Structure formats: C-alpha cells, structure tokens
C-alpha cells in the first residue's frame, strides 16, 4: 500500500517511516512542509496520506488545509490526520464531506503500533478512525444534555467504539465477547437512537456523529 507522509519533526517522521515499512507499507514520499505535501499528493496518487496538522512554513493548521484541499480535488482520498491535540472543530471539518476515508488521531496513538496500523488500514479502506478523545467529549457532552435514549452502560461502551470507527469484529475482540453479542447491542443502539440500520461501516459512524450533533 502506497503512503504519503507529512510530518515536520525529523525524529517522528523517521520513526513513522520505519514503523509503516515494518508493516509492509510503501512510503512513496515523506515530506516536511505544506507545499511539499500538496505536490506529493498530486503527483504520487497514494492509497493513503498520513498528515500532521501543523506544518511549516506557516506552522498553523497547514497540514489539515492541504489534506482538505487534496480531498476536494480527489474526493474520498483517504487521509489520516495526526495531531498533538484533538479538537471536535477539526473532526467536524474532516467528516463534513461525508466521503469517508478519514482518520483523526492524537500522535500518542502511534505508541500502540498495532492499533495505529489498524487505523491506517481502516482509513485506506474508506472507513473512519476517530480518536477516542473526540468521541468521549462528544458522548460526555451529550450525556449531560440528555440521556442517550436510555442506553445501558455496555451499550454506551459499544457506541463509543463504534463511533471511533471500529467494526463489530474489532469491538467484539476488544470487549472479549462474541461478534453476535455486539451485533445485538448495535441493533439495540440503532433502535434506541432511532437510526436506520445500515451495513456500511462508514455510514454507521457518520450516523452516530450526526446524531450526537443534534441539538446543537
């Protein structure tokens, strides 16, 4: 799988390249600034881009802007955005076009190589990978406003993982239960939230986030 990587800190860039190559990704370009990223995305047609939010020369949200621009030019281009901090504001902007293939994670998540690589693969396949921190903020905010349709604690757990972009199999693995149990939970959740059931992983997340957005 071909990856374009943009990260301005040499140590991190180097580490990410090594990690991605260790998991059989082909890093076609590892760049350190916004203009270079835009160029690399246009020229090398990668399967997935891993991008730091803050990039030179402006040292503002240049990486995010480049990624959004590239997705406008090529809708659905899978982009995994890494950041030193995660903000709902940015998460919303990334999810706004509804095309999927979006990830937004704290840089800390690279500590757990397996999970990080799993997120890259998921994004490359058109799914989503949202940082647990974003989802937790959304859920806790929602919970203080109105109870989430009387979800049980277990269903809340499942909803949280679902909103991060995990598949039923992955959730089952994490919670150490059978996939059938998770399927039952998810259909209960959809029922209680009044959401139409869908097989599409990506639409599932968007539906959850759209629901959480209600009442704003």
């Amino acid at each position, binding site marked *: 799988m071909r990856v374009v990587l943009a990260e301005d800190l040499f140590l991190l860039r180097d580490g990410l390249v090594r990690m991605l190559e260790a998991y059989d990704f082909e890093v076609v370009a590892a760049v350190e600034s916004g203009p270079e990223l835009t160029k690399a995305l246009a020229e090398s047609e990668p399967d997935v881009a891993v991008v730091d939010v803050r990039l030179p020369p402006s040292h503002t949200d240049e990486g995010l802007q480049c990624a959004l621009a590239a997705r406008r030019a090529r809708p659905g281009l899978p982009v995994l955005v890494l950041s030193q901090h995660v903000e709902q504001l940015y998460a919303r902007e990334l999810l706004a076009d509804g095309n999927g293939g979006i990830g937004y994670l704290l840089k800390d998540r690279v*500590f757990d190589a397996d999970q990080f690589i799993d997120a890259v693969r998921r994004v490359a396949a058109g799914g989503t990978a949202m940082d647990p921190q974003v989802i937790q*903020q959304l859920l806790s905010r929602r919970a203080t*406003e109105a109870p989430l349709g009387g979800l049980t604690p277990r269903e809340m757990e499942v909803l949280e993982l679902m909103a991060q972009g995990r598949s039923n199999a992955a959730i089952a693995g994490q919670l150490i239960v059978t996939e059938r149990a998770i399927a039952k939970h998810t259909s209960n959740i959809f029922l209680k939230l009044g959401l139409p059931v869908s097989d599409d992983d990506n639409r599932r997340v968007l539906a959850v986030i759209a629901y959480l957005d209600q009442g704003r």
Partner: protein
Amino acid sequence: MDASGADGGRARRALVAGARGLVLAVVGFAGSLTLFVLSVLSIVFIVLGVGVLTTPAVLSLVRSWANRRRVLAAEWYGIRVPALYRPFPADARTGLVGQAERCRLMLGDPATWRDLLWLLADMTAGFVTALLPAAVIFYPLEGYALAAGLWRIFTDGTHVGWWYGFVPVGGQGSAFLAAGLATALLVAGYFTAPFLLRAHFQLTRAVLTPDEGELAARVEVLTQTRRDAVDTSAAELRRIERDLHDGAQARLVAMGMDLGTIEALVEKNPQKAKELLAQARRSSADALTELRDLVRGIHPPVLAERGLGDAVKALALRLPVTTDVDVDLPGRTDAPVESAAYFAVSEVLTNAVKHSGADRVWVDVHHTGATGMLRIAVTDNGKGGASIGAGSGLSGIERRLGTFDGVLAVSSPAGGPTMVTMEIPCALS
C-alpha cells in the same frame, strides 16, 4: 444597528435615535436617580458605620452603570469615554478591614466623585438630551392623531380643549394647525435627532472625563496595569514551572527508572519486565497528556492555528452547556490581545457553566472597523446575580483586560439573564 452606517438611511437613523433616546431617558433617569440617592445615603451613613459596608457595593454598581453607558457611547456613536478608575491593589484584604479599605480607596478616587456628578448631570441635562430626540420623533404622532379626529375627545368645537405645543386645539381647523406643527417638528427631528442623541453622549464624555490631571490619572492606571501584567505573567511562569516539575518531569524520571529496572529484569524475570514496560508506556502517555493540558493553558493550539473566532468555537464545543457562537472577525488581532480575549471568554464561560445554572449560552464576537473595537458579549439564561467585586473571577478579568485598555460591563439582575460585555480597542490585520 450601526447608526452611522451609510446603508441605514437618514430616516432609519432618526427613528433609531428617537427610540434609543426614549429608552435612555426613561431607564437612564430612573437608574441614575436611584443610584444617586443610594450613593448619597450610603456615604452619609458612613458616619454611623453602616455606610462602610454598603458604600463599596453601591459605588461598584455606579461604576458598572457608568461602564454600561461607556459601552453604549462607543457602540452607537464611536464616542470613547475613558474609564480611569484607580485599580484596587491585587493583595487587597478581605473581610471587614478589606471592606473599609475598599471604601476608603473608592472615596479617595476622583473618578468616584466624577461618577456621582455624572449621575446628577445624567438625570437632568442627560435626561433632556435623551428625551429631545425621542420627542421630536414621537411627539408629531400626537399632532397627526389630533388632526385625524382625536381632537373630538377633548373639545366639542366651541372652546380650547387641548394644547398641542403652542397650538390651542379647539376644532378641526386648529387640529390641522397642530398637524402642521407636527410636520415641522418631524422635519426638524429627521435632521437633528441623531445629533441630539450624540450630544447626550458628548455630555457623558464631558462629565466623566477628568479635565485636569487626566495624564496623571492615565499614568497611574498604566502603572497599575503594568504591575498587574508583570505579576500575572510571573505567577503564570511559576505555575508552569511547578506543573512541569511535579507533572511531566516527574513522570519522565519515573519512566527512566522503570526502564533501568527493566534492563536488569529482562532476562531474570521477563514477566515482571513486561509489566514494567506497560507501566512505562502509560507514564509516557500521561506525561504527554499533562504537557498537552499545560500547552492549552499557556496558548491554546486552535488559537495559534486559527485565531480567536475558531478558538472560541472550539471552546464552546467542549462545554457541557449548549453554546451558540457568532463570530464576525474579518482578520486577526495582535497575539497578546487575542490571547487575553480568549482567556477572558474562557473564564466567563467557565463561570457561567459553574455558577449560573444556565442551560444555554450565547457568545457574540465582533469587531467594528469604524471604532476599532473588539466587542465580545457572553449571555446566559441562568439565574443572574453575578457581580464584579473582591474575590470574584470577573474582577480578575477586568484587571487583565485593563492591560489593553479594555472595559468589562456586567449586567446580571437577580433571576437573570447575565450578560457580560467586554470591549478591547485594537486593530485587525
């Protein structure tokens, strides 16, 4: 609602001035009269001792009343009325002694006496200058009503039953004369109403601005705000140092120790080594979280990346209360102003969430190009009762905004709603 806007048209401006004048006349007169009486009583009662307790509170009310008028003057007509109150020392004592101290400081401040003089002026000349534009706009309505038939209520046509201005209304003919006078008044009002209301605020400025020693007062304010700024940043540095020392630094040391132990254990007891490795990873994650929180406290990332508008929006998204943010900023301000404004909003919002019991908050951030003023209003639908006073977070914000010549006005009647308005003069780039 910018009265000087070219798009509004003269008629609309005149009408707006009339309406504003009416409100100002009624509310201003009642408020200033009440506050003046309260202040005089309170100051007289100092002799009896009771006044020591009430005077600071009453005078604070007077100040926010005057600040409110300052905000209106700047907003409606771009008239800057300087607020040159002597700040309280940061280490002000609390309790009875502190109260007496505050009382003494406030009475020693020439600005306090200017405020009281202004209350007098506001309920007399101020009342007239506010009522006049309202009168020239709304009194003509009566003239037309008379001509349209209202005169019949006052007279049967044989005697003078009513005076409209200097026109004795005694029948349909004189009622038409009244309508003529009304038209003359309306024409006059059409051209003069905005200027008359402007005169009201010029009067406010004239009375509230010290005519002598202005520079001395200004220097005093600057000295104090500079001291506040230096104190605040020194305290901030101490906090950062302490947080780093007790937090991230300690965790990194612990991590190093764990790694050392792991080195020793890795062959002897791989199981234990694995546990320690997991612990070391957790420590590093915690250290990162702490550093991230610390950075957010120094300079929030979104503020650095996107500026004040989006930073406030991001802040609102994290609040547990539904918050509507309306931003109209065509550019970015200087980083220090941006940062001060952000933390002020952040603190006001925290207050609102913690104390007001509100379930909805509105934040409005905009910059008026004409007056070069960043204006932020935070309104909540909570129970009200917030005040600027010793120990309240709001006076801290007021001090910090003071560094940038910013003003803070709080309107928070018991029962709510609370509206906190902040204004900072600054340019956008």
